[in-house]
């Protein structure tokens, strides 16, 4: 059977399980006795192993198998969770991720055996398990009751008894029996969350065929291959050897919940055919109660092959566990959609909005008397397109969680590597951003966090000297602000030593000693964002190679965002990353400078003021406006945009006050044209990207207007 069609599912699921594992292992380190977490880890590891096995990735399967063993021991309280163990587990996760990456790239797991890691696992396992050698013996015994419980419902689970046999099939059974083979009926239950049912069934058949011959399939083998069955299938097999071995092999196929079997004879089958109808009526009733059981059994009895019937005791004891396993998160009702299809949808919505805008400009441009209903309809259209746009945008939004949830693990690793104690606090993981932005924000954020861990936080001695808590704090906060999403990354470490930066800049010849004297704090900090400007005294693995903040900055700017730093020496620093919520369509204020039209994103506008020229004051030879207690620098757009100079200066200036974080600036424009929904179009690759213009848009009348990125003007 070709499994390549399942590769996508496999990759998706692997990364889900990996993330789950990573989260749980982190949780386990904090609370080593939490049984729920351990069970969750066990399930995730088991699924991983199973999936790898199904897809034929033997090395990956091997590694996950050994990990699973480790969890098994932990679950049975045979070994204690220690931080060395967590380290090993994380190393394993990294190795598995390596496999997954290989598979993603080449559909092949690669050739790395990770034998060292496996040895380490086993050494750990043996070392620990040996110390409490009597415990393992108990474990199987404890699980026995669970088997028993399952057994009580087994007669109903033996669906093979209900297979309706045709004459040909009965003959086949008879022939096999005559040949001296034992005939068994077998029903296999597949885990209900299993996605590759047909593949599982196929593996079961393959395993069984090693022992004997499959005489009858139910449903038919074709239906099974086409996945036309629920979560169980039955068969009659003819074998020479022991049925236990067969069942065990079948059970070892991953995501198989259980295998029930029983010996049958040709005569029984004949009898059964007769009795079937009567039996069917009777069986209806007792069926109800045990129907939940097969699922519940997963967590408690997965490892054991079906044992011989044992007294049905202490079922209540197991029920608690059983319920937990059954209460799996309900899968949300979602559809996976190719991002390209969404892009296409988005483009069409954009076209629609452009078309709508031209209708709007038509209706307002004419005599104004044109029929009232026409206006009404246009307004209606406007409402629809706006909400359509919002819906499409929402579809593209994903929480940043998928990116930031790998950070706790990273900080933990860094903490060990650097020998500093630190804790990461995150908030706002549910904040949503456009998919394309989320995909690309991971690296810059990671870099900032590493920066905080490596450069930001002081050594333990220094922290003690400064009276700070021993454990350093690193935080990541995300929240929405207007049309932007803000992500703050900071620490309570040393902060940026501007004097050192300054001397470094002078040393590098970036700035002269004289000029450096007049630099503001902000200008000095900006040096850090220059290419190849590393402040680390020693180059470490983590940072300090000079490819750093400049890359962060350019990555974020490529996404239409920007990054700012605030820092207090001795108290810590904070990087604020600002990202646009949407990339495609925004509400904008249209303004005119001379006869050229420009769009300013509404989200960044605070107020619009009419200011007499006389109110403009000068501070350090720069124009400022004193407005309601704030001193706002004035930017003359015509100068910034190289517009033709005006012959006579107007008495009253129209000033658009824009904000960026807690700073403001006043942009002087000639004329306001009103608010409009605009579609952002890129200027393409040819035009040298000057940062003040973030794109262009097409107005209702077909004219092109440029979009101003006011964030670049501060």
């Amino acid at each position, binding site marked *: 059977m070709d499994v390549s069609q399942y590769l996508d599912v496999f990759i998706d699921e692997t990364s889900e399980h990996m993330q789950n594992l990573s989260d749980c292992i982190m949780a386990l380190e904090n609370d080593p006795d939490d049984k729920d977490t351990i069970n969750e880890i066990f399930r995730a590891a088991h699924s991983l192993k199973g999936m790898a096995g199904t897809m034929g990735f033997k090395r990956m399967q091997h590694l996950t198998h050994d990990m699973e063993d480790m969890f098994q021991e932990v679950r049975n309280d045979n070994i204690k969770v220690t931080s060395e163990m967590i380290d090993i587990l994380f190393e394993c996760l990294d190795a598995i991720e390596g496999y997954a990456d290989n598979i993603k790239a080449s559909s092949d797991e690669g050739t790395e055996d990770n034998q060292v890691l496996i040895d380490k696992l086993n050494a750990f396992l043996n070392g620990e398990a040996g110390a409490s050698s009597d415990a393992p013996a108990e474990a199987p015994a404890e699980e026995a009751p669970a088997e028993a419980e399952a057994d009580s419902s087994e007669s109903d689970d033996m669906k093979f008894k209900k297979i309706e046999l045709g004459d040909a099939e009965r003959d086949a059974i008879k022939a096999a029996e005559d040949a001296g083979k034992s005939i068994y009926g077998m029903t296999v239950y597949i885990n209900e969350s299993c996605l590759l049912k047909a593949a599982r069934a196929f593996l079961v058949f393959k395993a069984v065929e090693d022992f004997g011959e499959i005489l009858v399939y139910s449903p038919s083998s074709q239906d099974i291959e086409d996945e036309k069955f629920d979560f169980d299938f039955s068969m009659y097999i003819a074998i020479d050897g022991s049925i236990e071995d067969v069942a065990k092999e079948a059970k070892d196929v991953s995501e198989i919940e259980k295998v029930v079997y029983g010996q049958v004879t040709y005569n029984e089958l004949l009898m059964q055919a007769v009795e079937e109808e009567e039996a069917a009526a009777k069986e209806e009733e007792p069926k109800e109660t045990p129907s939940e059981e097969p699922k519940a059994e997963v967590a408690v009895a997965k490892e054991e092959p079906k044992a011989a019937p044992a007294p049905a005791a202490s079922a209540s004891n197991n029920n608690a566990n059983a319920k937990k396993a059954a209460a799996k998160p309900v899968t949300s009702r979602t559809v996976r959609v190719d991002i390209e299809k969404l892009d296409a949808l988005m483009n069409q919505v954009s076209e629609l909005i452009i078309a709508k805008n031209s209708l709007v400009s038509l209706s307002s441009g004419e005599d104004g008397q044109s029929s009232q209903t026409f206006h009404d309809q246009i307004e209606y259209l406007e409402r629809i397109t706006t909400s359509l746009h919002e819906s499409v945008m929402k579809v593209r939004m994903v929480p940043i969680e998928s990116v930031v949830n790998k950070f706790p693990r990273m900080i933990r690793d860094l903490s060990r590597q650097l020998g500093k104690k630190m804790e990461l606090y995150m908030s706002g993981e549910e904040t949503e951003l456009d998919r394309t932005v989320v995909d690309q924000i991971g690296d810059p954020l990671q870099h900032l966090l590493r920066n905080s861990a490596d450069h930001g936080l002081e050594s333990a001695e220094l922290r003690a000297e400064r009276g700070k808590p021993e454990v350093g704090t690193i935080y990541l906060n995300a929240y929405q602000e207007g049309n932007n999403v803000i992500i703050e990354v900071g620490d309570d470490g040393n902060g940026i030593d501007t004097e050192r930066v300054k001397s470094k800049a002078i040393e590098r010849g970036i700035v002269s000693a004289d000029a450096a004297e007049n630099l503001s704090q902000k200008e000095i900090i900006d040096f850090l964002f220059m290419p190849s400007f590393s402040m680390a005294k020693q180059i470490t693995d983590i940072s300090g190679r000079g490819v750093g903040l400049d890359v962060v900055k350019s990555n974020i700017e490529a996404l239409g965002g920007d990054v700012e730093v605030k820092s207090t020496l001795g108290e810590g620093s904070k990087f604020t990353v600002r990202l646009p919520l949407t990339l495609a369509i925004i509400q904008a204020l249209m303004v005119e400078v001379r006869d050229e039209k420009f769009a300013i994103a509404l989200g960044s506008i605070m107020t619009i003021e009419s200011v007499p020229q006389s109110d403009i004051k000068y501070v350090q030879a720069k124009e400022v406006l004193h407005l309601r207690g704030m001193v706002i620098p004035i930017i003359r757009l015509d100068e910034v945009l190289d517009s033709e100079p005006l012959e006579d200066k107007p008495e009253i200036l129209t000033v658009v006050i824009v904000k960026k974080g807690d700073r403001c600036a006043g942009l002087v424009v000639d004329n306001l044209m009103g608010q409009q929904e605009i579609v952002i*179009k890129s*200027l393409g690759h*040819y035009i*040298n990207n*000057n940062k003040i213009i973030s794109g*262009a848009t*097409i107005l209702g009348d077909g004219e092109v207007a440029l979009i101003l990125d006011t964030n670049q003007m501060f």
Partner: protein
Amino acid sequence: MASSTSIDFTEKEKKQYIVVNIGEEQYGIDISFIDNIVKMCKITRVPKVQDYFKGIINLRGEIVPVMSIRTKMGLENDEYTKTTRIIILKLEAGMIGIVVDAVKEVVALSEDEIDRTAQSSKANANFINGIGKNGEELISLLDLSAVVDASIVA
């Protein structure tokens, strides 16, 4: 491009070029790179870009940058007349328009009608990759990647 019907019968190995006037000279542009030829329309200036970019235009809902080949070659500024056209090229990095004084005709040239070694006037030496001979007339064949490439920014 009504003229294209008349040359459907040309031999396979001949390449078609659109002949345009820029100043006194005739230039040929490989037809396979041409998406469209549009009349002069309003070009929206973009501040602070390379000087040879005239700005951007709206080509049926798409934003297309337009460059002046004259500025690039160091010739005097474009004068827009009735015959001025913008040739829209479709290249790997996207669409780009170039302003020409006039579009004359389509010619088909085979490789032996093209002189790859000849030098043209100094100004455009870097931008042509051959001279085509169409009867008595000489046509400088534009090396589009050279014309455009230098303007691609990382």
